[in-house]
Structure formats: C-alpha cells, structure tokens
C-alpha cells in the first residue's frame, strides 16, 4: 500500500497532491534556507499563525456573497492578506517600538491566532459553517481533496518554486554576505521584502498540506538538516531543497494511505527523521563524528603522556595508557619499554624539549602559538630552525 502511494498508483488526485507537496517542500526548503541564514527562522511562525483570521473572514465573506464558502482559492487569498497584515505588524513593532523581534513574533502569533479562533467559533454557529472543514487548515489534510483543489495546489506549488529559483541569486547574496550585497548596489530592504514575500506565499500554499501550526517546520528543518552536511552556500540550498522535497513527497504519500490522520504532522516527522539521521551521522558536525574525534584525541594525549613518562623512567599505572602502549608494542606487560618504545619515548622527549625552548623564546612567538602538547615540532619549524633550537639544548649533566 505504501509502495503504491510512493509510486503514485493511488489515482489522479492523490498523485497531483503528492507531486504538489513535493514541489512545495522543495520551495519551502530553499526559501527556509535564506530565512535560517538571516537568523529570522521564527518570523515564519508568526506569518503562518496570522493566516487563520483571514481564512475565517474569507469564509464568512464568501458565504455572505451567496457561495458555500469552500473555494480553496478564496480562502487562500484571505489567508495571504491577513498573513501580510501580521507580517507588517511584526515589522512595525520591531522597528518603531522598543520590543525585540522575538516579542513581536510571539505577540502577533498569539493574538492573530486567538482572533482566528474567535472567528472559527462564530463560523461554527453559522448554518453553512458546520461542514466548513476549516479545521483542516490547522494541521493540514490532503486526503479526499477535490480535483480542482489538487490542481490548484500543484500549480501554485510549481509557481512558488519557479519564483524562488528566479530570486535565488540576490537572496543567496543577502543571506551570506549582506555587506557585499549592499556594496554592489542591492537594497537590503527590498531583498528582505522579497524573502518575506516568498515565505508568505509558501506558507499560504502550504496551509492545506501542512497546516498553519506546523508549516514553520517545513521551512526550518530542511535548512538546519542541510547545514550539517556542508559548509558551502550553494550546497546548503540544494540539500535543503532535496530534504524539503522528500519530506513533502513521502509525507503526502503516507497521508494518502492513512486518510484519518492529519497530513502536517506526518510531513514534519518525515523531515525530522532526516534531521535526526544528520544530527547523528553527518561527517563534520554529527554526534558520531564528534565522539570519534574526542576518542582519538584522548588516545593521542594518553599515548604522548605515556611516552614522556617512559623517557623519564617513571612507571605507568594509568590503565588506558598502559593498554595503548602495550597494543602499540612499545612496552612489555610488566611496563618495561621495548626498543621501539625507547626510541619513541626519546623522540617524544626531544620534541617536548624543543618545544619548551621555542616557547621560551620571543622570536618564535608565532610558532609557539601552535603548541598544544601533541603537534610534532617538525610540522611547524623548518630543518634550519630545528638545528638552531637543537644547538641550545644543554648536554646532559652528571648529577652529583
């Protein structure tokens, strides 16, 4: 059944919805990356919650004009208008009053959502409102979507994606190097406006798929996930788009075979699963990589300290050090160094002695900053410099 859904075998509408969700996911992933890199990820949460009053008022207006109020296009236009008002409120509160952006986001989010709830309870008392199905906008519901709505979803998602791709260059520039963008004549105000416009459109199109409470995840999670895999600007955008696309596609397909469940949480959890895998396994920043790095570092420190102890003729009691040296064939089980062990210990001691001279001499100040107790000095100084240092090592003296 899931295989059928993933291979788009569940009929025309479900296929359209799945493809639409995939396109929407790509657009959200790409747009979210710019938002994330500008450190304004949570603005989208305010935008999405601010759509609710618009949806409700559009429904009432359409019923008042004699329709049944369920035209998806009309509802989405209403959502867009009230989201834009919410965005303006956030902007106004941040620039004109002493409130920070986080407070402005929280205020707009809760007040607009609360007002939306008031309107929803009004709609429930209307005759036409009983079957309105506006609750689907809270958590997303794609099951049993009408043909026209599915086409609208797929087409608008495709349009959003095209829009994002057209505006990709200036957005990328502004996200990674605002100073350069300004110096080359771009207006940051306009770029930010374009970015917020795109986020707004993504949010509105995503309402029916992911729902207004969780759409913020579709914008943030792909970008955060992508950040684990690369340090390069262009690659973050591509990976985030891919993660978003997969979340949308798999989430909508799974939702098609479980029509009772809301779509939004499924889409979000698919994305979150990819995030978790990245958090654990990514090569640079992942948990596993950091643990391995720490483990290797610990072993190098133990090895080095053990060798220095050997060189000074001290016994080794520390069990990990003992085991490491044993395994490397540098000592015998009773702690006596082998000939390789003696050589390595002498080498470590020489290295440490050279470092202590380098660190005591101001003229080597630059090289001394590289000292961490583990780096071999030959990797820092030239042979000539080493000779100079060696000339200063005192010959062994007889202890009286």
């Amino acid at each position, binding site marked *: 059944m899931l295989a059928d859904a993933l291979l788009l075998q569940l009929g025309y509408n479900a296929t359209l919805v799945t493809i639409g969700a995939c396109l929407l996911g790509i657009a959200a992933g790409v747009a979210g990356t710019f938002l994330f890199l500008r450190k304004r990820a949570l603005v989208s949460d305010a935008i999405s919650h601010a759509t609710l009053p618009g949806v409700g008022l559009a429904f009432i207006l359409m019923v008042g004009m004699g329709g049944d109020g369920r035209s998806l296009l009309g509802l989405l236009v209403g959502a867009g208008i009230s989201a834009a008002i919410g965005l303006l409120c956030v902007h106004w509160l941040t620039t004109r009053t*002493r409130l920070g952006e986080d407070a402005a986001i*929280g205020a707009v989010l809760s007040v607009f959502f609360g007002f939306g709830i008031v309107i929803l309870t009004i709609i429930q008392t209307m005759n036409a409102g009983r079957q309105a199905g506006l609750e689907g906008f809270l958590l997303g519901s794609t099951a049993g979507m009408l043909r026209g709505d599915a086409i609208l979803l797929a087409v608008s998602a495709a349009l959003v994606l095209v829009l994002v791709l057209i505006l990709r260059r200036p957005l990328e520039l502004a996200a990674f190097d605002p100073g350069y963008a300004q110096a080359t004549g771009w207006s940051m105000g306009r770029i930010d406006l374009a970015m917020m416009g795109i986020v707004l459109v993504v949010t509105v199109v995503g309402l029916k798929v992911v729902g207004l409470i969780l759409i913020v995840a579709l914008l943030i999670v792909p970008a955060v996930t992508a950040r684990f895999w690369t340090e390069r600007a262009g690659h973050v955008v591509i990976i985030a788009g891919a993660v978003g696309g997969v979340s949308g596609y798999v989430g909508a397909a799974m939702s098609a075979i479980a029509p009772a469940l809301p779509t939004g949480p499924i889409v979000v959890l698919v994305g979150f699963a990819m995030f978790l895998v990245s958090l654990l396994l990514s090569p640079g920043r992942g*948990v596993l990589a950091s643990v391995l790095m720490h483990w290797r570092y610990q072993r190098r420190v133990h090895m080095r300290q053990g060798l220095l102890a050997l060189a000074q003729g001290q016994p080794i009691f520390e069990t990990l050090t003992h085991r490491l040296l044993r395994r490397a064939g540098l000592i015998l089980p009773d702690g006596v160094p082998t000939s390789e062990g003696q050589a390595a210990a002498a080498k470590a001691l020489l290295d440490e002695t050279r470092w202590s001279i380098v660190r005591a001499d101001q003229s080597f100040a630059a090289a001394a900053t590289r000292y961490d107790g583990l780096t071999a000095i030959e990797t820092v100084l030239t042979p000539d410099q080493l000779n100079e240092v060696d000339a200063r090592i005192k010959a062994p003296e007889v202890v009286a």
Partner: protein
Amino acid sequence: MMGSEFVALSLPPILIGVCVAVACALPGNFLLLRRQALIGDAISHVVLPGIVVAFLLTGVVAAGPMLLGAAGAAVLSVIAIDLIRRLGRIEAGAAMGVVFTAMFAGGVLLLERSDTSSVHLDVEHALFGNLESLIWLDARGWSSLLDPAALAGLPVELPRMAIALVVVAAFLWLFWRPLALATFDEGFARGLGLPTEPLGLALVVVSAIAAVAAFDAVGSIIVIAMFICPPAAARMMTNRLGHQVAWSAAFATLSAIIGYVLAGYGPIWIGASASVSAAGMIATVSGVILGIAAVAGPHRDKVS
C-alpha cells in the same frame, strides 16, 4: 447578569482566567527582557506530547500524571534544544523551531492514533481549552462563597491555578534582586558570584509550571498570549522593573475579564445567540491592549 447565575456560570471561569493570565504574565516580564519571549511558545507546544504520553501510560485523565508528563516533556525539550544548538552550532531560534514542531507533530499523531474518544482529550481542546465549561454547579448566589459545602464543588482548576500563581509569585518575590541583576547585567551578576545559569533555568521551570497548570484549563493560546502581550504592553508604559511587573499584572487581569465578558455576553449584546471562544477573545483583547500601548504608551520608542 450579576445574580446567582453569574456566580455559578461566569465567576469561576473569570477567576481562573485571571489566575492564568497573571501567573503567565509575571515570569513573562523577565523572559521578555531576556529576549527569551518565545520560550512560552515552545513550552506550550511541547506540553502536548507529554500529556498524551502520560495519558497512554496511565489510561486516565488525571491531573498528577499529566502535570508530570508535561513537565518531563518540557525538560526534555530544553535539553534537546541545547544539545542541537551546541552539537550542530545552530542558532537558538532555529533549534527551538525544530524541536517544538517535531514534538508537537509527534503528540498530534499519538493522539490521533490512540483511542481517546472516550475521554476529553483532543488537539482542539489542547489549543483553545474550554474555559467556558469550568462552571460551579453548586453555587446558589453570592452567599455560596461563604458556604463550605458549596465551595467544595468549585472546579478543581481554580485551586490548582491559584496554587500555580502563588508558586510563581513566591519565586519572583524571593529571587527578585538576583533575577533583576541577572536580567539587566549578566556579567555583573556573575561577578558578584550569583549563579546566573541555574537562575535562568529556574525561571524557565517556573514558566513551565505556570504554562502546564494553565494548559489543561485554558489551552495553549492564552498561555502564549499572556506570556508576551501584557509584559510587552507594560514595557511601553515605564522604565522601572517593579512598575512594569505591576502594569503587566493589571493588563493581564484586564484582558482576562474584558475578554471573558466580551466572549460570553458580547454576541448577545449585538443580537447573536451563541457565545464565542473565551480563550481566543482573551488573547485578542490582550493584543488590542498591546496595540494601544504601542501607539500611545509613554515609553514606546526605541531609545528612551
């Protein structure tokens, strides 16, 4: 409107609403000044999976296990946010967004998949609560307030919320000076030897207590609105911390009372029959108050 019906049907919800509003607004002042305003938002989202898991484990809708579950979820989310922020070197806001949406999504799916049709637990209830249903059936009029037998029939949410309010107020009163210091000049506070990090964590925990206690009675919308709107409005009124906290408590009380009255009686005044969501209306009123303060408050400007 002021007769026995009022005491039975409107007084308890109004009192609960006021307790919720003030209990959330008080710590909200400090969260706002520390630029952690969205913590209230995050807490109220992650509480849902905690409550659902507690219900699935115990099989009953009881206050104790649910509070424990919610508190556990809140602590788990704080740890997860911190972990992601440090390990992935991800900005705090984004880490928060990832964690609370994922936990909320998990909570919703758990709730929808499990059989909760027999009990009063669903997503909409979690979002908007049901303030209107917290009525006092034993009340016969104002005199019932002095009647121990009738008082025993008060909705349990009222004493629970009152206790939460007392806990929050006591925490702020006890730690007022260190909290104020750590909020305005963290470096100086640390220099004095104050434990600023445990203090910050304690503030979050106290906020979580207020949020969790309120969640069950009124849903998450009021909680988020009350954490932010009254303190933000109070911020426009004064430059002094003590005055700001007092203003925010006044604004919170005002929002709760006006919001409830407008929701319950407003539609009747304009000729409609049914009432609207009290939780939504209270949030709306607090937004209106914030709007007025932002336009006309004496200290609204960026530089003051």
